[in-house]
């Protein structure tokens, strides 16, 4: 069978024009599919940045909350109630809100302020400079050194700034796994200082971060929190809720899905059409092979091998092209929201297999119907 596949390979690659057309169609299709899905994955990673950066196993929040930016403050008694649930190792408050930093030239820069539990500093970032205990110092803030850092005019240790008419001092710089979606810098401080500096409603806790005693307690904690009228979500659960919100309530998901579907259909039609034409142009040759003694299953193997090989090469080129584009974009836009995940790769590969199977199928139908007698008749 290897020899037959070798013939199939040579028939395919030696027809350079058709082969190039097939590859271009598939590469373009894979490129578009991966680009769309990786852009979506990048956006979702950024949208869930606070969740992943904090690293809490469970989050307690108002059921109406759909993303971290639109937190609905929780009553203080809820924190005590959660702490008393069986299976909770500890629970701490987290403040998440927006503020304005006044820059030297008098303009204002919006920032995200995360207020960590004063006692434990649970959810603190990894420091690049400074000591975490300095966050307790008067007006102490830790600034995240990400792509948005420069928007605060690259503050150094000890830099003073004005935040909502309050004095602030940089006591540390930190790095986090992901920066936020909206392109604004992030400052960490203590929960109490955040509440003090940023105007808030009667309730001040944005989220309650929970550490269960074991993962087996998660279900029990969720049920108990639900009885209190709130949601307790795992980290994954909260990321899924945020993702679902962007997919179903912002139009973003629909548009990306549409573009991905179009990319798939472009690949399907170009590849299917070109491959069918390729087979049609060689139909007399396949008929001759059949007359000489090739069996139906050997012809089927040849065609599916050609379709699959083209698909795999096109897939590799498409992935490579997409990775190159993302790398080039990041040279110019360090915060470019696009990441190629294993999920994207598997999805695109599955789609390529569908395209290859479809192309192979329509070609095989034609080839299996050839009557070698037609070859004699000319």
């Amino acid at each position: 069978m290897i020899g037959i596949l070798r013939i199939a390979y040579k028939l395919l690659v030696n027809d350079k024009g058709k082969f190039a057309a097939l590859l271009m169609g598939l590469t373009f299709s894979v490129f578009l599919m991966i680009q769309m899905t990786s852009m979506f994955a990048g956006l979702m990673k950024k949208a869930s940045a606070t969740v992943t950066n904090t690293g809490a196993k469970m989050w307690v929040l108002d059921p109406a909350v759909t993303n971290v930016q639109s937190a609905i403050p929780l009553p203080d008694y809820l924190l005590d109630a959660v702490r008393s649930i069986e299976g909770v190792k500890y629970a701490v408050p987290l403040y998440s809100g927006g503020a304005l930093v006044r820059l030297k030239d008098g303009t204002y820069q919006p920032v995200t302020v995360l207020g960590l539990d004063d006692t434990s500093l649970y959810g603190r970032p990894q420091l690049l400079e400074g000591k975490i205990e300095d966050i307790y110092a008067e007006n102490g803030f830790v600034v995240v050194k990400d792509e948005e850092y420069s928007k605060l005019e690259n503050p150094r240790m000890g830099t003073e700034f004005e935040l909502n008419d309050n004095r602030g001092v940089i006591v540390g710089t930190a790095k986090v796994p992901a920066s936020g979606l909206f392109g604004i810098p992030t400052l960490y401080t203590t929960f109490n200082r955040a509440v003090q500096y940023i105007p808030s409603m009667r309730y001040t806790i944005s989220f309650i971060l929970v550490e269960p005693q074991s993962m087996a307690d998660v279900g029990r904690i969720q049920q108990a929190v639900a009885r209190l009228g709130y949601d307790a979500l795992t980290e994954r659960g909260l990321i899924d809720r945020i993702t679902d919100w962007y997919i179903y309530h912002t139009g973003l998901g629909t548009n990306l899905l549409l573009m991905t579907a179009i990319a798939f259909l472009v690949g399907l039609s170009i590849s299917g059409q070109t491959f069918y034409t390729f087979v049609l142009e060689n139909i007399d040759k396949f008929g001759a092979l059949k007359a000489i003694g090739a069996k139906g299953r050997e012809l089927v193997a040849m065609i599916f091998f050609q379709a699959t090989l083209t698909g795999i090469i096109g897939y590799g080129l498409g992935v490579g092209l997409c990775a190159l584009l993302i790398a080039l974009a990041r040279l110019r836009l360090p915060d470019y929201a696009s990441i190629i995940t294993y999920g994207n790769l598997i999805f695109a590969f599955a789609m390529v297999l569908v395209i290859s199977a479809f192309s192979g199928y329509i070609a095989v139908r034609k080839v299996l119907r050839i009557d070698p007698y037609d070859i004699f008749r000319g």
Partner: protein
Amino acid sequence: MAPIAIRAQGLTKCFGHGDVKTYAVRDVSFEAHFREILYIVGPSGSGKTTLLSIISGILRPDTGRVLVEDTDVWSLKENALAEFRLHKIGFVFQDYHLFPNLTTVENVAIPLVLKRQAWHDATREALKYLEVVGLGARANLNPNRLSGGEQQRVAIARALASGPDLMIFDEPTASLDGDTGRKIVEFVKREVLSEHRCIVVVTHDDRIYEFADRILHMEDGRLLDGKGKADA
């Protein structure tokens, strides 16, 4: 006389139904022997190609049977029939049907590859057949860089490569000029015909009749002498 290679008995094949029913081959019986070049001649539409297709295991007759050596060709199932064609029959098509994207030697190696020979063994053996037809030096060229006569010889080499008992030539001179056509058929008679091989040629080119051992005339699907006696 050499043993019988082909025995065709009562072959009939018609196409269409009702008013448009046409008999392409009608009650044809004949025999062909090893070491014989048998011509089937006749005007266009007389049923020559249909008859050729039936005896080579490509087109199933409506009635009658074909014995190649002792094999009842049309009693074979599809895969066995493909195997039979691969091992017993060598085809030289009118338009050659060479793969333009394979080299000459790769084209010749196709039957060997279909017989499951390893690629390198197949191409090495194919080269020998190319040398038999005098094209060893052109092994690595693509067929479209060869002349019509050379392409015909490549097609012959490919047919020879399967080591067939029966070789089928469909209008072997139709695409060639008179001189080249004669040379090709002369070559076939000299180099291809052997003790264990029978050659059946369908043609209406009377310039090559002299190379036939026997000629069967067909018209309207019938053999003119009824039994297919030699009249060359």
